[in-house]
């Protein structure tokens, strides 16, 4: 099956989980000749070399100043050009901001099937069979495409393993594309975030604080713990609504869905809304003074204690351990 994988990049750097999507693509394609990747941006040709060995013989590159920043219409045009060039029946991406924005547009344009944020995916003849969490992770849905001329699938980060099997030359094939001059949507700028750490949705380690943090200033305690672990700091809705943390840090139903290897919840009681966003974390550590807090029901390890006592001790002990 001809498969195309969209590699998300920003400022010339591909997403850390992009190789997971490429590995999924390789499995669906069955062989390097059937797998291609597409990279879109300005000065992004170098990314192709990083894809070598992950199962794709071809990397389509759309490299043009006009594609420097993401734009849903011009990026849809570019991916569509790669779909046509490769004859792709399946297009794989990462369940991350660009892919989740552009795949629905392409599915509508090409009257295709679309599976979003899957945690399992397989080819069944010409169709795709996947599994995706629904209703805030309370159930898993078995989702399938049928009679689709082309199907789009985005895979949840940190679920699938990236594997370099040493196949696929990742040879660059340039697609010459100029965006329409009369575009009704222009990207004026991309403002940098204050956060240098991986985004919550892709972070392998997260330290999160709840209402019990008591102030924005107190989040420093979690920042110190996160520094030791190279983790990203998150927050519950209660902490965000109280003004202790910014909205982009919010984990949960009206925030971000995260899936790290380790999630440390400090002073978070564990509302349904919060757990909707973090219950698939592989290991959950909860610190809370209330032994009845619902968070302990999903915790791998729990400590009934004051986070202001426990968090600094975690920082000291982990620092000593990781420096060894």
């Amino acid at each position: 099956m001809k498969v195309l994988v969209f590699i998300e990049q920003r400022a010339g750097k591909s997403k850390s989980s992009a190789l997971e999507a490429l590995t999924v693509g390789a499995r669906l394609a069955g062989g390097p000749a059937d797998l291609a990747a597409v990279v879109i941006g300005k000065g992004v040709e170098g990314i192709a070399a990083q894809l070598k060995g992950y199962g794709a013989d071809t990397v389509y590159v759309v490299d043009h100043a006009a594609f420097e920043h993401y734009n849903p219409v011009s990026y849809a045009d570019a991916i569509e050009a790669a779909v046509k060039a490769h004859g792709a029946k399946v297009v794989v991406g990462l369940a991350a901001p660009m892919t989740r924005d552009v795949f629905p547009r392409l599915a509508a344009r090409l009257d295709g099937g679309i599976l979003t944020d899957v945690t399992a995916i397989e080819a069944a003849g010409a169709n795709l069979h996947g599994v995706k969490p629904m209703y805030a992770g309370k159930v898993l849905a078995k989702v399938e495409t049928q009679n689709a001329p082309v199907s789009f699938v985005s895979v949840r980060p940190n679920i699938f393993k990236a594997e370099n099997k040493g196949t696929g030359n990742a040879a660059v094939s340039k697609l010459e594309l100029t965006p329409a001059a009369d575009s009704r949507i222009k990207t004026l700028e991309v403002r940098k975030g204050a956060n240098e750490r991986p985004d919550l949705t892709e972070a392998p380690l997260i330290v999160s604080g709840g209402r019990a943090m008591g102030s924005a200033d107190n989040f420093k305690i979690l920042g110190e713990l996160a520094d030791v672990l190279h983790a990203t700091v998150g927050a519950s809705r209660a902490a965000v609504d109280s003004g202790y943390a910014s909205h982009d840090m919010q984990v949960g139903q009206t925030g971000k869905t995260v899936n790290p290897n380790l999630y440390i919840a400090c002073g978070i009681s564990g509302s349904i809304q919060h757990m909707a966003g973090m219950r698939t974390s592989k290991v959950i550590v909860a610190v809370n003074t209330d032994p009845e807090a619902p968070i302990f029901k999903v915790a791998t390890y729990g400590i009934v204690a004051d986070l202001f006592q426990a968090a600094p001790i975690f920082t000291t002990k982990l620092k000593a351990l990781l420096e060894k």
Partner: protein
Amino acid sequence: MKILVLLKQTPDTESKIQISADGAKIETAALKYIINPYDEFAIEEALKIKEKAGSGEVVIGSFAGDSAKELIVKGLAMGCDRGLLISSEGLEGADSLTVAKVLAAAVKAESPDLVLVGKQAIDDDNMHVGIMVAELLKWPHVNVVTKLALNGKTATVEREVEGGQVEVYEVQLPAVFGAQKALNTPRYASLPGIMKAKKKPLDSKKPGDFGLDAAALKAGVKTVIRGFLPPPEKPAGKVFKGEDVAVMVDKVVKLLREEAKVI
């Protein structure tokens, strides 16, 4: 300015989601429906735009079953001017692209200057329909919008992406924008608003009223939900209490390294 807000009814976040005995569907009889929380930000933004302009019309529409009627009325009570319920009879549970095809036809008929939606629905979390409606109409869209400023037929729109980064767009209307939480704080319906809502027009339509054939739409569905599974059970965790905090932290650090092997 005429604004069309598209609404989806979703089960209340507190709902217990029960899978049917044969695993084929979700039991809906006991579910309590609410306006998809992100759609409330879309309604609020539409009302704010109208208030600032001092004129205009806000229409609130949904492609749904009859149960969505009271949610549309809730939107009217918040201040929307007119309701539009397009019956999903015969197309219940259709995929997002089919829903988008119906809604795009409705948008075409209404011909608004702007369509506002929630950035995603909290039931399937797909983030599809608003974007697909835009594509089917060949309109631009921006989803996950945290800031919106209109200047005549041009909008400056901010979209939140990873790591706190913000993409800033200049968009020519008509367009579709998907509201993110940070956009505004939705109002509550006032008592006079609730009284007035009962007298506001609420049109009932079918896909056929927009020239669509429900049977053909059904035959063209490309994505289906084949059934549901419960999420895997997590084994009970180890919870420590009553000991010295440093001792408990020590135990957990050791388990993280030796048992869970995550650090």
